[in-house]
Each structure stands twice: as structure tokens, then as C-alpha cells.
């Protein structure tokens, strides 16, 4: 038995504490027990502890009645421990100092840790403290560089805090998980590292390790646990970065603690925070501070994502199993980001496990989701995640809710002002459309040296709607000809994106990230009749109808550099170049192109930003971004500035100001019969202007260990807003209006409206950050108005204008259970209502009814509110590691009717109003499992 022990010495590695847990694990694994225990569990644990020098801690009172009566033969200590834990309904947990805690319930850990600190005398074997310095310090005032990683998977941890113990010298790891710590006082100090969801740890510097790139690895904290954290680091699923202006952070791994409808959704989760509107069920895109989703830049591993959702906007395009970290900048963001007016969402994909192979997945009523990750060789890793929906009841319910537009048959012509009946259950030839979405993420990370990392990330996802069917019409005539006909009605849209990223550390003070990215968005639609026509042996293929094709391609090269000049000055700079190619074709009957656009544009430029900390309390961040946009041939300069001032330890002031330009816009092609389609256009010199916004943000927060109170006010003025729509009249099914009596050709009208606008508001957030009960309440008072000459001379409420929005998010943790309740209430969206109607008699005697309408967006829909509940049960292994969860979610529990929009249908001169609703009560069950 003891023969193993000497070998273990070699496992005691240089890096202080974290090795203790590893060492404990090694002892458990390698120690072989052949012994007959017949004693109380207390006695057995004490024996093991003494014999193998293992720090085992437990509550004597709790387990004193438990006995062991077993003979173990050639079994590892780990298996022995597992056996006795299972026998007695216990779990063990190895903390990063190497101590093994014996737990009755998952929540016992903080209590046991306190007990251990309090009753030091009852500890037989003490966990080794952080090792003492080996000798007197030899180096003074130098810089160290390093990386913070996850001990179990080897993934780097961006945003972790590294601090020299007992000093003010501290820094945060950048997006690659790297850090530079300047002015380290000596080579014998300890570095304290902390990060959300991980056990804080300390690492001793030595003259030997300061010259190399340090790797500081943290152990995950016990999963089902919300322990009170000493340094005020937040551990919740959604957090406000109180040290920055308007930044929200999301931990995707904790998303199962919130209610979901089918999919854990990284974009929807942000809608629970103030400043991001939660009432657009038909869009998982972010409506941030009176902005629209196309004003939100979304990047995934560096490439721009042009379509962020699936299934008519109900689900975001991002698989939460492939996402490590998401940050949302609600405004006033750094000069590193640009090209959008409102906000930035930065999504970082998981690298994949560098230590061991793992497989996991989720199964819900909507979709299945599988991922696998594995190390390849010693210095690379691979992660693959795939997701696909299936047409189960939940899918169909959501599909039906959001797809009232995809009705095959055109209802009888009712003239202008008439329209399709919602749901359109009339007519013939009705089929159930088949539709699905899928997405695939893959990431390969190669780390040839500590200084260089290469990562290749690929995303592919699409939504497919097939509404085609064979036509059942009486055959036309004739014998020598035959015609095979089918009605085609396909919509397909999706994204493909890829990025190749090279992260390098140059010297001690310089970091570089160079990215080559490709992003493609396509949206295709075919609607018409196709078939083949045979005449005397000659077969001709034909297509009658419309095809629509939108393709956006974005090739970009980006290089971001970080230079830590001194501990008070950090310089960020970089350059970027994008080649955008946007095609939009609208073709009728194979040949006639109604719209054919093929636009290319180059967006290139550079940025620089200084991060200044003149005192420990003041942080200033001036920046400048300059962009050349080839279609207009102009240079666009965007000055930015943000700053924070720490008045007291708890009290922070913050503010930001900046200018933002946007060169691409998402526009809508209205299609009354087939459903609206979105696509992207490039600004130009004539009718689509480059839009501009100026942000002004001020706020403060008051933060204690348990609570955060955050207030931010914002004002944005907006210029060069575009409302561009393509409206189809006539043609397949659209042939309404007074000209509807005969077959009419499809005509397209392109409307370009330009306008200005503003958005302003104030956000309040009170968050309880730790303990069994966590959550927050938030209130936003806002206003978003626009002025378009086409609609009149006055400002009107923008479509996304919400005056009051209240959110209450409550999470309660009990052992393996997590419960949550989310309540959202807000003012209804503005809309344009019909005030009356009138009928005109045309020259041919046709009577046509028209609606006279209110001021643009002059009315409000009823208030929106709903309550969502969820309960999640964590599946834990005997050693406390979470391997899955079962979650039940109830959406809109009290089945409140939230209005999406109204539809008006004219029947017998009367206008019939139908309310199109958002989702009612919807339950869902999700099972998540992983192998390790």
C-alpha cells in the first residue's frame, strides 16, 4: 500500500496550492486498499486520513451513526471512498487546497468550510497552505505574463482577475485569457486569481518561473453552489460589470437556471437585463436602448453574424453548448468595435477540452443538441457541437404562432384594405409546411507554444421552410404533350461563418490577435410553379413565379494589439479591412429580373484607444476610430471616451460619450402572402445614407458583497436612419387592389425613407448577487422617437419604443434544486390603428374600401406582461461534479394574451379586427447530460 507514496512526491509541482487538489486526486487514484473495515465511518475516515496524509474533513455529528462493514481487496482509495459515500448517501468534494469534504448535501460545503476554519483543532491532517517563499527575493519591480486556465479542461479564462497579494497591483485577463502584470514588487509574492464560477486560488512566484509565461489554473467551484464570495466577484448567470460602462456579462453554463422555451438561449437571456427590451417574442435579436437588432453588432469568435436567429426569430442562432462567454456592450463601447449604431454582442466560442475527451447533449421538446470535445495530441483541441430541431408539438406550436403569414392559398381578392385572414384556414390545397433549423459549430485550437495560439472556428446554420406540393389541377388538354407541375414554395436562410485567429504574445508587454474571417448570409425564396413540359419527346423545364436571392459575403482581416506601457497606461490599437459583397436579385419567371443589385464595398480603417489609470480610483479610456467606406469614398471619424471614478470602495461613477457609424442596414421586403423577408443592403451615395449616432451615457453604481445597485442614463441621437422597403404588388397571390380583376404582372416598388431620431432613458437595477436567493429587479424608463419626412413633420414613437419596462428575476437555490421565477411587464408597443374606413366606387363600378389611419404609431397595444417559472434538478456525481440537469420550464404561466399586432380584414364593408397573439402558456422539459 505505501509503496505508492514515494512516487507521489514527483507530482508535487511548483505551482503552489492548485497542485494540492491534484495531489489529493492522485493519492485517491493510486493508493490501493486491501483492508477489512468494521468500524464507524468516523473511524474509517480518520484512519485513511492519518495513514495516507489526506486532509479529510467532515461533520462528526452528522455521520457518527454510520458504520462501515466491508472488506476491500485491491481497490483504489477513490473507489473505496465512492463506495462508502454511496452506501451512506454521501458525497465527497475536493477543494483546491486538497481537502476532501464529506457532504450530506451539496449545500453543506460552505458550512463545513466555516466549521473547519473555526475548529482548527479537530482537523487531523491540515491541508498544505500556500508554500512559503524558497528564499529571499532576488528580482524587484518586474513584469510577469501569463494565462489563466481551467484546471479540468485547459480552456483559457478571459476576464479573470489576477492580483498581487496585499497590494493594489492587479489586472484582468484579456479575451484570450492572457494577462500582463506590471510592477510586481518581488519574485516571492503570491498571485491571487479569481474568476466567476471558479475557486479563488493563490500562486507563489519564484525566481525560476517569473521569466516564463505563467499558467495559472483554477478549479471550478462546486456547481450547485452559490457561496458568498469574499472579493465581491459575482457568480450569477447575468452580471453587470460595475467597473465598466454599460457592459453585461453572461455565463452560458448557468443558463439552465433560467426558464427557457425549448432552447437555452444566450441572446434571449440578455433580454432579462435592463436596457434590453424583453417584449419582442418574435425576435431574439437585441433591442438595446431604443435601438433595433440590426444596430447591434454580433460577432462569434471574431466574425460578424448577420442573422442571429432561427425559427422566425424565436431562437438565437447560437448553441449555448458551444459558447463560453458572452458580453453585451449596451452603448458607448470601445473604439475597438464599430460599424453599428447601438450595441455590440461579443460571443466567444468554447475552445474544447484540452485535458480529456467529453461528450454531452441536451434533449428538449424542440430540439436535440450534441457536442463532443477532445484534445488532439498534446497541444491542440477540438470541439464540435450540432443542433437540430424536430417537428414536435412545441415546434409546431411556435411555428404556427409565428408563421401566420405562410399560408399557401391566396384568399379571395377583397380590394385594398382587405386582406388575408390570419391563420388563413380557407381555400384548398392546404398542406402542413415542413420546416426545420439546424446549426453546427466546430472549433480547433492549436497551441504550438505558450506564446502562440491558432484557433479555427466554423459556424454553419440554416432555416429551411418547405411549403411545396404537387399541383392537383385538371389536366389542360391534348395528347401529345404532358406536363408535370409542382408548386414550389421554399424559403431558406442562414449563415456560414469562419474565423482563423492567431493570438500571440510578443515580449512581456505586447499582445496581438490577428483574425481572418469570412461571413456569409443568404436568404433565398422561391415561390411559383415549376415542372417540365414534354412535347413530341422534347422535354422543356420551366419555372413560373418569383425567385428571390440575397447573398451577403464579408471577408475581413482584423488585427488587434494591446500594449501595456506601464501599469497605468495601456494602449490598444489595431486595423481592419472588410470586403462586403451584397447581391439581391428578384427574378420573375426565370428571366425577367425585377431587381438586380450587386454591390461591393470596402470598409477599412484603424483604431486606437488608451486605457489610463492616473490614480487607483480613476479610469479613463479615450479612443478614436477612423473608417474609410468605399461606396461613399469618405472617411468617417469616431471619437469615443469612457471613464469611471471610484468615489468609495462601494460607490462608482461612470460615463461615456462617442460617435458611431453604420454602413450596412437590414431592410424588409414586405410580402403579404409569403411572409416578410429581411435582407441586408449597403449604404450608398444616393438613397441609403450612412447612419450616425452619438451616445451620451452617465451613471453610478453602489456595490457591496451581496448587492449591486446600478443606475445608468443614456441619450442617443440618430441620423441617417433608413426605412427601405420593397413592396410587391400583383403577381402570385398578391393581385389585390382595384386592378385585381385580371391577371396582373408583379411589380415591385422600392421605397426609401430617410429620417432622424433619438432615444433616451434611464435604467435602474437592484441585484442580489449571492446566497441561496439571488436575482434582480430592474426598471427602465425610456423613449425612442423618429422623424421621417415621409410620415410627416413631427417626431413619432419608433416601433421599438417602450416607455416603462419592469423585470423581476428570482432564483432560489436549494441543494440540487434551482427554482426561478421571471416576471416581465412593460408598456405596449406603439402601432398605427385604423380610425375609420371609407369606400370609393371606381370607374368600372367596383367598390373599394380603404382604411383611414391614426398618426404614425399613434396608438399603443395593451401592456405586455408574463410570468415564467422553472425548476431544475442537478445531476451530480458522487464527487460533486455536475454531469447534467433536468429542467422544467413554464412560459407565460397565467396565459396572458400579449398582442403581437392586429390584423384588419374587410367583410361586408365592415372592418374585422383580429389580434395576433404572442405565445400563451407553454411548458417545456429539457434534459442535459454530459459524460464527464
Amino acid at each position, binding site marked *: 500500500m505505501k509503496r505508492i507514496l514515494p512516487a507521489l512526491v514527483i507530482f508535487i509541482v511548483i505551482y503552489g496550492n492548485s497542485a494540492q487538489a491534484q495531489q489529493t486526486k492522485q493519492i485517491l487514484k493510486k493508493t490501493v486498499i486491501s483492508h477489512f473495515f468494521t468500524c464507524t465511518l468516523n473511524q474509517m475516515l480518520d484512519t485513511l486520513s492519518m495513514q495516507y496524509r489526506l486532509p479529510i474533513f467532515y461533520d462528526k455529528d452528522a455521520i457518527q451513526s454510520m458504520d462501515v462493514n466491508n472488506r476491500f481487496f485491491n481497490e483504489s482509495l477513490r473507489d473505496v471512498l465512492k463506495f462508502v459515500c454511496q452506501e451512506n448517501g454521501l458525497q465527497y468534494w475536493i477543494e483546491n487546497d486538497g481537502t476532501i469534504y464529506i457532504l450530506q448535501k451539496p449545500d453543506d460545503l460552505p458550512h463545513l468550510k466555516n466549521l473547519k476554519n473555526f475548529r482548527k483543532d479537530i482537523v487531523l491532517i491540515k491541508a498544505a497552505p500556500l508554500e512559503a517563499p524558497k528564499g529571499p527575493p532576488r528580482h524587484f519591480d518586474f513584469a510577469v505574463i501569463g494565462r489563466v486556465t481551467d484546471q479540468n479542461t485547459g480552456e483559457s479564462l478571459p476576464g479573470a482577475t489576477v492580483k498581487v497579494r496585499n497590494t493594489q497591483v492587479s489586472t484582468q485577463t484579456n479575451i484570450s485569457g492572457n494577462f500582463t502584470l506590471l510592477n510586481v514588487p518581488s519574485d516571492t509574492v503570491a498571485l491571487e486569481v479569481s474568476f466567476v464560477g471558479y475557486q479563488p486560488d493563490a500562486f507563489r512566484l519564484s525566481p525560476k518561473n517569473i521569466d516564463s509565461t505563467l499558467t495559472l489554473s483554477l478549479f471550478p467551484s462546486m456547481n450547485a453552489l452559490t457561496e458568498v464570495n469574499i472579493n465581491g466577484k459575482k457568480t450569477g448567470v447575468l452580471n453587470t460589470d460595475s467597473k465598466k460602462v454599460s457592459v453585461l456579462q453572461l455565463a452560458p453554463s448557468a443558463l439552465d437556471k433560467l426558464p427557457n422555451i425549448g432552447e437555452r438561449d444566450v441572446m434571449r437571456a440578455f433580454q432579462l437585463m435592463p436596457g434590453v427590451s424583453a417584449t419582442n417574442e418574435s425576435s431574439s435579436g437585441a433591442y438595446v436602448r431604443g435601438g433595433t437588432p440590426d444596430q447591434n453588432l454580433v460577432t462569434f469568435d471574431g466574425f460578424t453574424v448577420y442573422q442571429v436567429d432561427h425559427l422566425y426569430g424565436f431562437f438565437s442562432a447560437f448553441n449555448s453548448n458551444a459558447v463560453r462567454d458572452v458580453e453585451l456592450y449596451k452603448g458607448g463601447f470601445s473604439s475597438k468595435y464599430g460599424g453599428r449604431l447601438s450595441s455590440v454582442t461579443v460571443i466567444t466560442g468554447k475552445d474544447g477540452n484540452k485535458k480529456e475527451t467529453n461528450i454531452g447533449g441536451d434533449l428538449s421538446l424542440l430540439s436535440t443538441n450534441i457536442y463532443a470535445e477532445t484534445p488532439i495530441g498534446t497541444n491542440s483541441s477540438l470541439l464540435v457541437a450540432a443542433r437540430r430541431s424536430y417537428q414536435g408539438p412545441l415546434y409546431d406550436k411556435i411555428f404556427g404562432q409565428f408563421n401566420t403569414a405562410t399560408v399557401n392559398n391566396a384568399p379571395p381578392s377583397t380590394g*385594398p*384594405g382587405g*386582406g*388575408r385572414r390570419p391563420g388563413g384556414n380557407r381555400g384548398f390545397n392546404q398542406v402542413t409546411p415542413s420546416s426545420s433549423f439546424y446549426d453546427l459549430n466546430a472549433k480547433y485550437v492549436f497551441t504550438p507554444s505558450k506564446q502562440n495560439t491558432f484557433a479555427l472556428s466554423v459556424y454553419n446554420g440554416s432555416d429551411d421552410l418547405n411549403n411545396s406540393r404537387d399541383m392537383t389541377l385538371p389536366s*389542360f*388538354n*391534348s395528347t401529345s404533350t404532358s*406536363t408535370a407541375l409542382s408548386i414550389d414554395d421554399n424559403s431558406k436562410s442562414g449563415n456560414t461563418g469562419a474565423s482563423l485567429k492567431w493570438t500571440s504574445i510578443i515580449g512581456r508587454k505586447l499582445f496581438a490577435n490577428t483574425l481572418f474571417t469570412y461571413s456569409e448570409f443568404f436568404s433565398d425564396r422561391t415561390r411559383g410553379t415549376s415542372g417540365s*413540359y414534354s*412535347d413530341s419527346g422534347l422535354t*422543356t423545364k420551366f419555372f413560373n413565379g418569383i425567385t428571390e436571392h440575397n447573398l451577403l459575403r464579408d471577408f475581413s482581416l482584423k488585427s488587434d494589439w494591446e500594449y501595456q506601457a506601464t501599469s497605468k497606461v495601456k494602449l490598444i490599437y489595431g486595423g481592419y479591412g472588410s470586403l462586403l459583397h451584397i447581391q439581391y436579385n428578384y427574378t420573375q419567371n426565370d428571366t425577367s429580373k425585377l431587381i438586380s443589385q450587386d454591390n461591393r464595398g470596402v470598409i477599412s480603417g484603424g483604431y486606437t484607444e488608451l486605457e489610463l489609470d492616473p490614480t487607483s480610483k480613476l479610469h479613463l479610456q479615450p479612443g478614436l476610430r477612423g473608417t474609410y467606406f468605399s461606396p461613399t469614398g469618405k472617411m468617417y471619424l469616431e471619437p469615443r471616451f469612457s471613464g469611471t471614478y471610484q*468615489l468609495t470602495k462601494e*460607490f462608482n461613477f461612470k460615463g461615456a460619450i462617442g460617435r458611431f457609424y453604420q454602413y450596412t442596414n437590414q431592410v424588409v421586403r*414586405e410580402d403579404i402572402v409569403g411572409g416578410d423577408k429581411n435582407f441586408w443592403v449597403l449604404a450608398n451615395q444616393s438613397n441609403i445614407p450612412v447612419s450616425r449616432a452619438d451616445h451620451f451615457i452617465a451613471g*453610478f453604481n*453602489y456595490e457591496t458583497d451581496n448587492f449591486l445597485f446600478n*443606475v445608468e*442614463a443614456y*441619450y442617443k441621437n440618430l441620423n441617417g436612419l433608413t426605412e427601405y422597403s420593397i*413592396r410587391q404588388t400583383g403577381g402570385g397571390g*398578391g393581385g389585390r*387592389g*382595384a*386592378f385585381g*380583376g*385580371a*391577371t*396582373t404582372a408583379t411589380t415591385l416598388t422600392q421605397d426609401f425613407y430617410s429620417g432622424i431620431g433619438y432615444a433616451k*432613458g*434611464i435604467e435602474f437595477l437592484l441585484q442580489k448577487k449571492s446566497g441561496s436567493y439571488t436575482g434582480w429587479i430592474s426598471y427602465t424608463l425610456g*423613449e425612442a422617437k423618429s422623424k421621417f419626412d415621409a410620415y410627416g413633420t*413631427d*417626431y413619432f414613437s419608433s416601433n421599438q419604443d417602450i416607455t416603462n419596462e419592469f423585470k423581476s428575476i428570482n432564483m432560489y437555490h436549494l441543494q440540487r434544486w434551482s427554482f426561478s421565477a421571471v416576471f416581465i411587464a412593460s408598456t405596449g408597443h406603439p*402601432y*398605427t390603428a*385604423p*380610425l*375609420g*374606413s*371609407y*369606400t*370609393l*366606387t371606381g*370607374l*368600372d*363600378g*367596383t367598390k*373599394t374600401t*380603404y*382604411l*383611414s*389611419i*391614426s*398618426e404614425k404609431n399613434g396608438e399603443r397595444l395593451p401592456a405586455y406582461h408574463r410570468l415564467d417559472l422553472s425548476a431544475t434538478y442537478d445531476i451530480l456525481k458522487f464527487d460533486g461534479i455536475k454531469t447534467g440537469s433536468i429542467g422544467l420550464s413554464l412560459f407565460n404561466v397565467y396565459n396572458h394574451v400579449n398582442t403581437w*399586432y*392586429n*390584423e*384588419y380584414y374587410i367583410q*361586408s*364593408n365592415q372592418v374585422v379586427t383580429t389580434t395576433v397573439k404572442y405565445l400563451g402558456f407553454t411548458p417545456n422539459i429539457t434534459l442535459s447530460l454530459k459524460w464527464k
Partner: protein
Amino acid sequence: MEITDKRVSYLIIVVCALLFASCNKTETTTSLADWPVVISYLMPGQPINVKVYQQKDITDTATYGSPITGLTLTLSNGTQTVTLTENAPGNYAYNNSSFLAAGKTYSVKFTYNNMQVSASTLMPAKPGNYTESATSLNLPFTITTTPGVTEVPALTLKWDNPDSLYHLLVFKNDQDSPFNIHAYMNSAVNFTLNAKQASFYDVYYRIFNYLGTYSIILYSVNKEYIDVLSSNANTTSQKLTNPPTNVTNGYGIFTAMQADTVRLTLTQN
């Protein structure tokens, strides 16, 4: 702690006050629901009638809203202004057919609910050299459409249009109860085609559903009327727009036009 709390609340008040200090309401003077509906087609040689209605409530099942009576409507041709007389409730008429002539701009004005309602229109030139390629057509029993092959027009209508005026073609069946050759379709007997700014129109067999003699009336019209006819207003509250109108402070249509007619006999045997 207490001090900071006070500071917090003070700051909230200041920020709120600053942020919303600039809010002011725009006064809506007249409700859009009070706007009158005007309908008038001015055609030389025909009596002038201007109908004025109220809008209907959206739940109203009547065809027209209540007529607006007792108004004083004036009609001007640019040099001469006449007052219309109300010969039926809401119908204001002027019975001098020589008042209307091509090239003149006609304006109607009246005051309703203390609001000046007006509209004006230009009388277009009469269509010239309006001809048809055939005076009768024998409709086939089945129409063979060969996909991918362009159909040969059954009839071509031609006229002069040097100024690219807008034209409409109204097909009116002269029979009392014309025979429907596509009984299952229940199509409209009379219909209108938009010839846009062209000087010809190709007519295909498939647009005909009834037999008998049709008057094919070619109207030279103004864009305002084309706009009203081709209005394809959306019916969801997300995108409602007011239908196009050339009436200021009102709805409807006040437009001038001139016509010429050819006849076409349709048979099927």
C-alpha cells in the same frame, strides 16, 4: 452609507429631471377621424358631381358613411369660380358641361369642422387615335398555355400618347346578364386594367370570363387616380399606411379624366 444613499437618491432625481425636462407634447388640433371623404370624377360633357361623406366607423356595415350636408363648395377652373349646389344630401353638383376643358386645373374648396378642405386636378387631353386590332373575338374553349412560351395577344389596343399620360382601360359589358364561361370562378363582369404610361395594351384570352359586347373605355387619367387604385395598403397594424389621396385635410379622390370608347364582341363557338 447614509450619506451615499442620500447622494444616490439625489442623483436619480437630477438625472431623471434632466433627462425628461425637454419632453413636450405635440398638440393634435383636429382628429383624423373628423376628416371628410370626397369623391369626384370630372369628365368633360358630363355633369359635375362632388360627393362628400363622413368616414365610417370601422365596425360600420354600410357602404358609404353619412353624407355631409349644408356645405358650401366652390369649384374653380383657374379663372372662374362657381358655387356648387346640393341636389341630394351630400352630393354637390354644377350643371354646365362646358365648364370642363382639357389643360385646365380645377380646384374644389370647402370648410368643414373649421378646416379648409381642398383638392385640385388637371384635366388631361382626350385620348387620340384609339383603335383596336379586332372588333370581335371568338374565345377558345380551352386555353393551352405552353410554359416557357410567350403567348400571342388576342387583341391589341392602341392610342397616341406623346406626353406619356397615364391611361386606364375599363371593360364594361353592355349586356344585362352576360353568359359566364367560367361559371366556377365567379369573376367580376366589369374590370379595369392599368395601361400605365404606354400607348398600347395587349389583351389575352384568359382575362375574359363573360361573353357579349364589351365597351372598352380608354381613360386618360392623372397619377393621383392610379395611385389610389393601385394602393395595396397593408392590413396589419405593424405597417398601416394611409391610402394615397389628393385631398388636403380629407380623404378620397378628386380627379379629372377624358375618355374614348371602342366596342368588342366576344363569342365562343
